[in-house]
């Protein structure tokens, strides 16, 4: 993206020079120190010494719709197509702590993800899929402790041991208040639940990433790379402070912190950003938290290609956009990647679009040679100069957020929310007044009939099936009121909620019932207006 051809800037406003030379990088010895060796602090060149030579990134397409059985079918399909791990999309009622039968859930059951009401639903979601041998990502936040409990019960029923489970729970509530917006409880008790999950997993499920600190949604909502870096790091600092405040050792929990960034089309700035993210986290871990364990300084991340860059116009162009984004994520050293379906500006993707997205990853992995060497762009005058500049700008913004009292205080004051809204409006206006070119939207526009594209159609009877399932479940189960009372006791006393949650999940308590216990104990949050 550029302001004019004569005076271009990156998307975050960094001026781009005609030519970069060794003079832009300063003292070569200092550069060596800043980029270091892959697998060692500050990890600029990658979290692992061998990177993709030893193990390719995980291909993890985000999927979910309808009932547990519907999504289970798509999971089997994706694995048959060569996907190497799973990523679950939940519907809005599940994300907001509502059973499928709740009046407010009526229009939304099974739409943007799978409907999960009980541990039974979770067990069916993974029918025929060995949980001790699969890595599963859960995009779930306000109800993350409940979903984790359901998952542990599903794994238990398969005979899989907790200690063997691998995967990632998003469990990053701060960015929900900032950008993604599926919060339920106020910030403070929400943070406490995040802490309970991380504390529980650190001792009970040590292979599981209990949190994925995410800049992706703020970026998708419109912020730039500098803000994405600063929000993500400031949120990570807030979580780490919370856990250290509970008496946990940073060196013990931080190795299981996972991160999540967006990759848009601006490949060089994205690669620089991802290298900066690793460098910043290594510094923060060492300087703020006194980390001595290199694993606690090592940032690992999942990259989601950007849906916001895709267009409803000329949708096949999105295949090209996604390919470049995926390549950027690989050059930036991602541990796992999701590629968008080309039809996602209009509907959830068809099987065909999902398969093509997976094939995009497979082609980049196996046909380009890009995975054969570590951090191939290191030493590029441009990329290293951008890396240094982004680091300086992000560090300054982290300082601004510190000055506001840290991430939680800044979010409660609505500051990052306002920054994102302003930044989003600026980029929309750039497309509207033609200072930014969007092919098919404001340039090279075609008269077309988009109705020709075959789009996914949700089976509207799915909701009725889910309601019938839930009814049968409620009829068939024994009384759960003492299990709910035990959970309520933990919620109000400050005891870790996970074990009582798991017990209530085993006994058949529903997501809505468990969420209601928390609503009663913690209250609910309504977003303050920005205007």
């Amino acid at each position, binding site marked *: 993206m550029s302001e004019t051809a004569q005076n271009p800037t990156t998307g975050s406003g960094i001026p781009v020079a005609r030519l970069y030379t060794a003079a832009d990088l300063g003292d070569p010895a200092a550069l060596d120190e800043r980029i270091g060796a892959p697998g060692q602090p500050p990890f600029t060149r990658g979290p692992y010494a061998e990177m993709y030579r030893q193990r390719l990134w995980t291909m993890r397409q985000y999927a979910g719709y309808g009932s547990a059985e519907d999504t289970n079918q798509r999971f089997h399909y994706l694995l048959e197509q060569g996907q190497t791990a799973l990523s679950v999309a939940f519907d*809005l009622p599940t994300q907001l702590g509502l059973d499928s039968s709740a009046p407010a859930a009526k229009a939304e059951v099974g739409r943007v993800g799978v409907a999960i009401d009980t541990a039974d639903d979770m067990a069916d979601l993974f029918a025929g899929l060995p949980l001790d041998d699969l890595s599963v990502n859960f995009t779930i936040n306000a109800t993350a402790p409940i979903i984790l409990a359901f998952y542990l019960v599903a794994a238990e029923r398969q005979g899989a041991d907790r200690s063997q489970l691998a995967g990632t729970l998003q469990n990053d509530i701060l960015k929900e208040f900032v950008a993604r917006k599926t919060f339920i409880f106020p910030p403070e008790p929400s943070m406490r639940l995040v802490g309970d999950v991380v504390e529980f997993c650190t001792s009970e499920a040590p292979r599981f990433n209990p949190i994925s600190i995410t800049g992706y949604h703020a970026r998708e909502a419109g912020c730039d790379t500098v803000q994405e870096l600063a929000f993500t790091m400031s949120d990570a600092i807030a979580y780490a402070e919370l856990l250290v405040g509970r008496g946990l050792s940073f060196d013990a929990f931080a190795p299981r912190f996972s991160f999540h960034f967006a990759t848009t089309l601006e490949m060089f700035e994205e690669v620089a950003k991802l290298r900066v993210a690793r460098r910043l986290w290594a510094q923060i871990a060492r300087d703020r938290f006194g980390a001595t364990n290199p694993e606690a300084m090592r940032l690992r991340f999942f990259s989601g290609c950007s849906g916001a860059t895709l267009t*409803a116009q000329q949708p096949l162009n999105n295949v090209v956009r996604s390919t470049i984004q995926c390549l950027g994520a690989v050059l930036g050293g991602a541990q796992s990647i999701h590629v968008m379906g080309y039809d996602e500006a*209009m509907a959830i993707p068809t099987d065909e679009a999902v398969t093509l997205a997976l094939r995009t990853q497979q082609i980049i992995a196996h046909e380009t040679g890009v995975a054969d060497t570590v951090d191939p762009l290191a030493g590029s005058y441009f990329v290293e100069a951008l890396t240094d500049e982004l680091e300086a700008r992000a560090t300054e913004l982290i300082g601004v957020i510190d000055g506001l009292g840290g991430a939680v205080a800044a979010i409660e004051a609505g500051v990052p929310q306002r920054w994102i*809204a302003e930044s989003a409006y600026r980029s929309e*206006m750039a497309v509207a007044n033609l200072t930014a070119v969007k092919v098919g939207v404001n340039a090279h526009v075609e008269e077309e009939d988009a*109705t020709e594209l075959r789009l996914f159609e949700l089976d509207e009877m799915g909701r009725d099936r889910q309601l019938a399932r839930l009814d049968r479940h409620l009829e068939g189960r024994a009384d759960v009121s003492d299990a709910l009372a035990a959970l309520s006791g933990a919620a109000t006393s400050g005891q870790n909620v996970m074990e009582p949650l798991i017990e209530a999940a085993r006994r058949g308590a529903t997501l809505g019932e468990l969420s209601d216990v928390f609503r009663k104990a913690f209250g609910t949050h309504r977003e303050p207006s920005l*205007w």
Partner: protein
Amino acid sequence: MSFALRDAGCEVIYLGLRSTPTEMMTVAVEEDVDVIGASILSGAHLPIAGDLIAERSRHCLEHVPVVVGGIVPPRDVARLLEMGVDEVFPAGTAIADVVNRITALADSRQERP
């Protein structure tokens, strides 16, 4: 979208996420609005639009236009218009176009006696 309408001289009352059709209509009555708009990204636009139109009648607001924007597949645009939605803005609609069509609806409403 709120910023763009504000810059075009509109007064915008933004209710935030997950407002119910009933809440929206209550505010529409209280504030005597010219246009009611909903952004729906989840794919639930058909049932939600049905509720919006029903709630609009229940609040005797048939004279106030309702517009819907969001992730709306092309096949659903006509369905929404048939249901009584006045304008539909699927993903990809230019912001200036949205502003123009909303202000035109607001103007035509003000011209009525």
